């Protein structure tokens, strides 16, 4: 599915488009053709081989790891996916770098329209963000490479589309659309006046909230300045008035009881557990009575050793070291610890919204404040 052109999306030459298409094809091949074969190969060859030698199939994640990391098929697959990931960012990065001055100029002009952008150069960036470039994306979401930089945002907008081989939709917004729909169906009486999207990145999940709740004032916060500069220009290019600000989702600058709906999409799985718990407490502080927090992410972590091992692939190979924390949150206990009532916690499974071969266990969950 081709990506919808908008004023901030990079323009690419014939050959850049062709290289992108090859990388998306590599991703699709690895995830939709090879990944399912790994399970079959494990069941039919590797686990029986282990049983023959040790009297039982691998009974723990460590035993599965020992078997898999000695499998040339699995290691070849892993190298293919890791290599494709590095190639993806470098290929798109070359195209972004080539047109960066023009993109910055365009962003500055677009931003003069609707919405707002508030940056805070003095905001301390948590170590869990700066120590590891998530997704092996050079510079992560926070590194400025020039004045008024939009590089990270432009890179991510095109890159994530190729990563998902189009599966996030022409505007990379299908997860945000699902989040908004889940909130609407779960809380039909909710008519939010103010909405906050945490870890909004390029705004892929922020804009669908504005579309679903057209009467609301919509805000997005993120740690990364180059993401926010890009997001604000992209929102303006797509005709949405969104207020973006650079802030830490675990301790924002907003006063108590500022919002009726607070969301995040694919944010929690990039945060360590203490930060997630702080984020829940911050949601409780920021919500008005009757307000809702809704987080779109992993709902659980598999128990079965092979599934648990494969689920952890991104932890080791894609620089996502905290992924397990979001899958092993305690619901409702972790919400209760943040101030919510156990009776007000909700879960909406949304399997297959994204990379369904891998993420069978994703969905939207959160709580409503009394």
């Amino acid at each position, binding site marked *: 599915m081709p990506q919808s052109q908008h004023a901030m999306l990079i323009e690419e030459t*014939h050959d850049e488009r062709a290289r992108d298409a090859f990388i998306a094809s590599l991703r699709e091949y690895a995830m939709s053709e090879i990944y399912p074969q790994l399970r079959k190969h494990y069941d039919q060859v590797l686990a029986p*081989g282990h049983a023959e030698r040790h009297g039982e199939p691998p009974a723990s994640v460590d035993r599965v790891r020992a078997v898999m990391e000695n499998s040339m*098929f699995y290691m070849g697959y892993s*190298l293919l996916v890791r290599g494709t990931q590095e*190639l993806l960012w470098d290929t798109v990065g070359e195209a972004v770098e080539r047109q960066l001055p023009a993109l910055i100029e365009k962003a500055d002009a677009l931003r003069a329209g609707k919405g707002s952008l508030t940056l805070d150069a003095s905001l301390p960036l948590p170590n869990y963000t700066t120590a590891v470039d998530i997704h092996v994306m050079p510079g992560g979401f926070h590194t400025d*490479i020039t004045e008024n930089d939009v590089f990270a945002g432009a890179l991510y907008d095109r890159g994530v589309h190729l990563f998902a081989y189009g599966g996030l939709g022409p505007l990379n917004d299908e997860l945000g659309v699902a989040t908004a729909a889940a909130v609407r169906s779960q809380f039909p009486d909710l008519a939010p006046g103010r909405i906050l999207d945490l870890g909004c990145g390029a705004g892929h999940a922020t804009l669908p909230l504005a579309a679903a709740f057209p009467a609301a004032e919509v805000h997005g916060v993120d740690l990364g300045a180059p993401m926010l500069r890009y997001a604000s220009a992209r929102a303006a290019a797509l005709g949405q008035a969104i207020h973006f600000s650079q802030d830490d989702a675990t301790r924002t600058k907003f006063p108590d009881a500022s919002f009726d709906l607070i969301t995040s999409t694919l944010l929690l799985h990039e945060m360590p557990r203490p930060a997630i718990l702080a984020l829940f407490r911050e949601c409780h502080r920021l919500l008005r009575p009757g307000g809702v927090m809704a987080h779109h992410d992993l709902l659980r972590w598999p128990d079965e050793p092979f599934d648990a091992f494969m689920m952890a692939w991104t932890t080791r190979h894609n620089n996502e070291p905290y992924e397990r924390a979001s899958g092993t949150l305690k619901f409702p206990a972790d919400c209760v610890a943040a101030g919510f009532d156990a009776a007000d916690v909700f879960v909406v499974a949304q399997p297959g919204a994204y990379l369904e071969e891998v993420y069978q266990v994703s969905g939207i969950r959160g709580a409503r404040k009394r």
Partner: protein
Amino acid sequence: MAAGNKRRRFANGPRRPKYLASVDADRAVMMILALAADVSALRERLDTHERLAAAERLPAPDAVERYAPTEAVAAARAAARRAMIDRVTRVLLEPEPAGARAAGEAPE
């Protein structure tokens, strides 16, 4: 902060895991992937030339850049990429045969 518009080309974080028998083998495979992306782009450029020629248009650089494949052409190109990936990755993705001890697994 400003680094003259130059992007970083390597990510911060833990060292790249080792996949094959040596990190040099891994590096060679990753170079082959990059090269394959360029070969695929070259194929598509040649395809664009041929399709312009079939339409009796000159394949001047501008015409190549402006060429927009139809859905049928895009599907044919996707199939060609898929077939090329299948050929290039065959050896990398070779499954162990049933009964074979996984490479490197210590004998009891």
